[in-house]
């Protein structure tokens, strides 16, 4: 009925997904891919919350996931607006194009 996997396996899965997302942020230079990797990381953190909440049968893990979902939605809307701005200004999606600050 309900999966009875050990807590460690769920947390290892969340850590592996987080590591993959972090690798994506570090390796890719295309800013759309970097945003996608950030989404993977946020999702893996939510997975860790759900696994821990399921372990103790509490509702708080799922409440936290709802908050993470809200945060991800706000983050991605601003992030994609920045992507469009970057593309209009530099005509490229390369994050290194915007490596010099003004001032």
């Amino acid at each position: 009925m309900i999966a009875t996997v050990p807590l460690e396996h769920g947390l290892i899965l969340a850590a592996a997904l987080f590591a993959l997302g972090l690798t994506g942020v570090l390796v890719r230079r295309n800013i759309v891919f970097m945003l996608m990797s950030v989404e993977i990381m946020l999702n893996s953190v939510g997975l860790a919350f759900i696994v821990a909440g399921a372990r103790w049968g509490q509702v708080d893990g799922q409440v936290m996931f709802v908050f993470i979902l809200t945060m991800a939605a706000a983050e991605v809307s601003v992030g994609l607006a920045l992507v469009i701005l970057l593309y209009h200004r530099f005509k490229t999606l390369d994050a290194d194009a915007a490596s010099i600050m003004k001032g």
Partner: protein
Amino acid sequence: MNLLFYLSAVVALITTLLVITRTNAVHALLYLIVSLLAVALIFFSLGAPFVAALEVIIYAGAIMVLFIFVIMMLNLGGRAAKQECLWLRPGIWKGPALLCGIMAAELIYFFLSGHARISAGGVVQPKEIGIALFGPYALGVELASMLLLSGLVGAYHLGRPEKQ
């Protein structure tokens, strides 16, 4: 149910690895959607059906549609038509279709095995989440609404037409 968890975990890891190694953004998005669906199935197997539904509707639905909008907007130009032809090749759908098929089989197995109507015991019902959200976490809900408002204002500010 443990099999469902581990199979979905393997699918999630494979698709996430494919997301960060693709060069075409739309291919990566396709795999990212499959990855999110796999994570939703993991939530389902862990007794969190409400959050699984939220994952599919908001993550795989709304947020990924935003990504697709932006990618489609930025791909305007001479290369777009050629790229459309490339995307319409049937070959590129094989990977996501296979991985989605695994998850569809899991879901069918789940419903046919007679456990679809879970009464109690570990499953957190949406009602409990609502009570917790608007009870002890009411302040968090208010802060989340402020965050969404600031995200809206920020996206509007960044997207406004530049003055000449």
